[in-house]
């Protein structure tokens, strides 16, 4: 899933970019629900990382935080253009319906809750890593996820 934790310190930004771009854009897509917005958020995040590349101690966690912040900024902006982004064609199935239903539920959650769910269950981050990415106390991550799961449980048999 393209986790950045546990990776060695990157010395070349281009390598870092190539290694992280796809996983980060998928992560942002889950948070924002829109591929075009996800691409914008990830581009903005990488631009932030590039600006501080020489000063960053751990590029991975910093990138995740930048992505989350960019997603948060984009989610606040109203009236942004709804650009279509292609999804992979798949056959209709019960699993696809559940995915779409879950995505709709995720989109209806407050930003912090949806981001925490994605970071925890897609990114596999720990509570302290999620707290750092969200800029909150580690102790508040658990309740945030708990509240989100109450709503998401509808699509989890």
């Amino acid at each position, binding site marked *: 899933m393209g986790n950045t934790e546990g990776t060695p310190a990157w010395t070349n930004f281009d390598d870092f*970019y190539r290694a992280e*771009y796809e996983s980060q854009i*998928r992560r942002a897509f889950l948070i924002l629900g829109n*591929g075009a917005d996800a691409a914008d958020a990830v581009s903005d995040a990488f631009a932030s990382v590039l600006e501080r590349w020489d000063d960053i101690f751990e590029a991975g966690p910093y990138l995740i935080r930048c992505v989350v912040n960019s997603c948060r*900024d984009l989610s606040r902006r109203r009236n942004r253009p709804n650009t279509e982004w292609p*999804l*992979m064609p798949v056959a209709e199935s019960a699993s696809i319906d559940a995915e779409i239903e879950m995505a709709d539920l995720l989109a209806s959650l407050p930003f912090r809750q949806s981001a925490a769910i994605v970071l925890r*269950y*897609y990114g596999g981050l720990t509570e302290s890593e999620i707290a750092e990415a969200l800029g909150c106390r580690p102790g508040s991550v*658990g309740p945030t996820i708990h509240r989100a799961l109450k709503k998401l449980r509808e699509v989890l048999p």
Partner: protein
Amino acid sequence: MSRLTEQQEDRLRELLAGRADRLHVPEPYPPVPMRVEGVASGSRSMILAIAAVIALLAFGSFRLLAAGPPVPSVGVDAAAEQGSSDPEQRWEGSVGLLVFTTPGSASNTVSGINTKADEIIGQVDALGASMRFVQTRRNITEQEFNAFWAGSPEVEADRPTTWPVSFRVRPDSNSDSDVAALVSELTAIDGVVRVEPYPGCGDGPSLVTPDCDGSDRRIRDFAIAAGAALAILAVLVRAGRLPLRILVAISFVVVSAGLVFAVVRPVGVQLDRAAPAVAEIRSQFGSDLSCEQWYDLEADTRRGHLDGADPRFENIDPGLVKTAIDDGTDIYLWPLWVVPALFAITIMLAIAWFLPLTQRWKVVIRIAIAVVVLAGVVSLPIDFRTDRAVQCMSE
């Protein structure tokens, strides 16, 4: 952390991964992005907007806090002259005037002020029927004079070289030209530096600022500045650059500040003015006065039975007690510095929100906020004791 079963957690991971994998990410990836100028200019405009908001709020706070000492009125027994106890009738249509006397002149004494007031009133009377006093003339007492300066050595040392005398007049006709003529004549009096009309006080009844000390204008300035600041913040919220809760929080603080200063500030002035009378009563009583004794004294005074009614109070001047009651207050007084402290908290929160601070700095800011709030909570009972000291002299 959650009450999901292991199977449910696996299902959630599966759904998320499935959804994420459906996104088509074309290769090659786009080139490494660079900051475009638009983003930078957006940040600049954001910084400018926040700076404007802070400047406006700072200006509004300054105007609220820039209250001068209460200006003693030449007369306050207006209702008697008007033949009405209705305050609205008393003040309606009147204009407040502030006359500043010569620096360093004898007007900085009680007798000098009263002499100057006589001179001023002579000029008003010279205008005949076109202008008349709303207030009845009476001399400023030594006690009022001391109350104006609060009697403290620090204030005494800072005593300005001009003495303001305020009074209210009601023009009978053509008010603008009559007031202008009066201002011109008063300015021509020897020893008068300048004369300032107070239209804010003269527009109608002004029970909150009976001394016409300019509170109306300060609160109006604050309202304009705060309104402009909130408008800028509203635009930022609309543009998605600012969370709505920040606007709500700042609005709450701003409105609270306006209300507190519109109501509590005049009360604070009253409280200060009562302090010399309270000290004098304590001196005349000759020993510590308990709350119960004070309540008895107050009740006797209100009934007009003080003279000889209770031998304990025979040495106390009834007029002094009445002054203390009139000037004092039993309204709970909030510490005046709470409002600027709230502004400081708001600004700190704004800094914490907008700047890319590290977690450590955010913790520092939270601690600072906690210290300010704790200091405010601790100061409340201190201020409450001050209030009670004036009210019942229990200290």
